[in-house]
């Protein structure tokens, strides 16, 4: 009896402790758990990697997987970046730790590092690996001795995943884009063509209004007869709920084609819009980042000679009802979807 009571007490204590582990936040209002940052014990003589990153959960997921892969070979020092961090703070962290390589996560961190490079333009820069930033291919030109992994999921990955779960054809995919996405779209066209998928792109202006977007979508659907629509992760194409109703939903109501999106929240069977979401797999991104570090290590850390990589791993979310009723599900489709919503 006493023993059982002890175990109960222990379990209750465990629950309290574990819940305490999950309460650290970044102030962003998200309810996801953010782990306190503890770097692995230092190993004498091992080269040091300096991770500069924001504290929120997705970055922690990448960090956790990255550390699991690299901790035997490298020392790790984590520098948390917040809105209050200055280029001087980052410079001090770099000076203090003298890293063999930097790992920089998100646009704000890269902006700080760019300022650091500008302020130390005559000095030799340590190699830097950049992850979880927008448009890394374009951004890289503004950094010295840097490479990394693009964050945008290539369209071809999403299209091939969708093609492997639905019976309807996925041969022509329509996409609306703004001028700043032009180079990105050109790269996507080439990648999609390798999988015999035509990416039919409709350019709209820098600023997008509902009639303009709707006209572009209508042309893709009625004129170009695309099989699938792909919604880019671009604020101007999404704006707000009313805008979505007036554009995407209005056009998709009359043309039954699947909509591929890049965020899971747009896939909701109760208010159907996105049919299939494809998002980065952050733990796998940690592994890919670690592999990139090992590659650089074996090539004398010439980061500038290493091409920016594309993300290899994704997670998929599907509106199962929409896919089944309108496009037909393949027999083993459920085996290949990470999250099926009904």
């Amino acid at each position, binding site marked *: 009896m006493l023993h059982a009571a002890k175990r109960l007490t*222990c379990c209750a204590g*465990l629950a309290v*402790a*574990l819940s305490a*582990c999950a309460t650290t936040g970044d102030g962003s209002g*998200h309810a*996801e758990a953010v*782990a*306190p940052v503890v770097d692995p014990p230092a190993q004498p003589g091992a080269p040091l990697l300096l991770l500069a990153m924001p504290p*929120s959960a*997705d*970055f922690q997921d990448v960090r*956790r997987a990255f550390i*699991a892969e690299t901790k*035997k070979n490298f020392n790790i020092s984590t520098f948390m970046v917040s809105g209050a961090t200055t280029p001087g703070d980052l410079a001090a962290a770099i000076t203090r730790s003298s890293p063999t390589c930097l790992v920089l*996560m998100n*646009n*704000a961190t890269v*902006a700080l590092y760019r300022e650091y490079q500008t302020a130390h333009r005559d000095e030799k820069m340590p190699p830097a690996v950049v992850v*979880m*930033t*927008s448009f890394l291919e*374009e951004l890289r030109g503004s950094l010295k001795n840097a490479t990394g992994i693009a964050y945008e999921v*290539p369209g071809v*990955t999403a299209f*091939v995943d969708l093609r*492997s779960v639905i019976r309807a054809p996925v041969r022509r995919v329509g996409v609306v884009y703004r001028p*700043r996405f032009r180079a990105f779209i050109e790269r996507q066209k080439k*990648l999609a063509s390798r*999988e015999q998928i035509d990416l039919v792109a409709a350019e709209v202006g820098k600023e997008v209004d509902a009639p303009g977007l709707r006209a572009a979508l209508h042309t893709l659907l009625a004129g170009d007869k695309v099989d699938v629509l792909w919604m*880019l*992760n671009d*604020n101007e*194409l*999404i*704006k*707000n*709920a*009313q805008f979505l109703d007036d554009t995407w939903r209005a056009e998709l109501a009359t043309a039954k084609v699947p909509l591929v999106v*890049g*965020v*899971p*929240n747009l896939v*909701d069977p109760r*208010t159907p819009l996105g049919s299939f979401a494809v*998002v980065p797999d952050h*733990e*796998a991104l940690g*592994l*890919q980042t670690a*592999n990139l570090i*090992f590659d650089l290590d074996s090539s004398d850390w010439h980061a500038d000679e290493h091409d920016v*990589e594309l993300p*290899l*791993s994704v*997670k998929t*979310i599907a509106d199962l009802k929409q896919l089944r009723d309108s496009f037909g599900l393949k027999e083993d489709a459920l*085996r*290949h979807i*990470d999250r099926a919503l009904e």
Partner: protein
Amino acid sequence: LGGASTLFEPSRLYIRWCARKLETRRACDDAFKQLARSAEKCPTRTVASFPRTRRLTPLGLGVLLLASAWLGTAHAQDGRPTLYVFLQLDVKPNVLEQTLQKQLPGIAVTVFGRFRDFQDVVATRRPDAILAIPPLLDLDHTKPTLQGAKGGRDWEAYVLVSAGGTQPSSLSGKTVGVVDLLGHDGTQAFAASVLKTSDLKVKRVAKIEDLLPLLEFSAADAILIPGAVVKRLTERTRLPLAVHELPGARVGLPAVAVLRPAARDTVVRSLQGLDAETKSILGIDNWSSR
């Protein structure tokens, strides 16, 4: 391209989603306005809460370790033996876990999707049994109690697949994609052993479906996969593929190691009772006792 202010910020949609839950469109649009001001502070961020299976925060893991030392090994709370599974199959880990759990009600089944997650947890919480391929059991110095077989063979052939219709004439200096079966060093050694050369660059991926992008993006010259996976690969892709058989590239089929002798009978009996469909998912059609 400096700021992220004009890029899509998924957290805005998270707010919209929350607002819709409350059926207040107005609150939703207010949230959009507020977030527009803070957008450039935020990275592109996914707000999905995927089932975060078998992952703990470092502190949580530490607390759990202390507790498990006190509470004993990783028995299920209801006293059922525990089975930890790590197999790279062409099926999502959550689907495999549901399928196995349904077939094995007398066992608490946990399926791991990544080698590191599996390795970390097995090292700290000893399960009653492990279902994995023999090279992984060897790594843990455990011997199979049950060995899977298909068509009378307890191994499967691995093949090398490349895009473009032709195989590289020599593997020397080439990049080969492999699923992370055994960690950085172990997977490198595995690939070198199967391909009979160490003069190659191994690109590890987390999941078997991540190998196709290596070929699509020309990030690898070839990928190393079990022969049984070729069919699914050719169904998924329109890339012209060249499949090259590798003499002697044989890897053991899934096997079960029982770590706690008291659980042996339950584990063996339960796994031998798997139906044909589940065995087929595991890539076997029979078990043999060892």
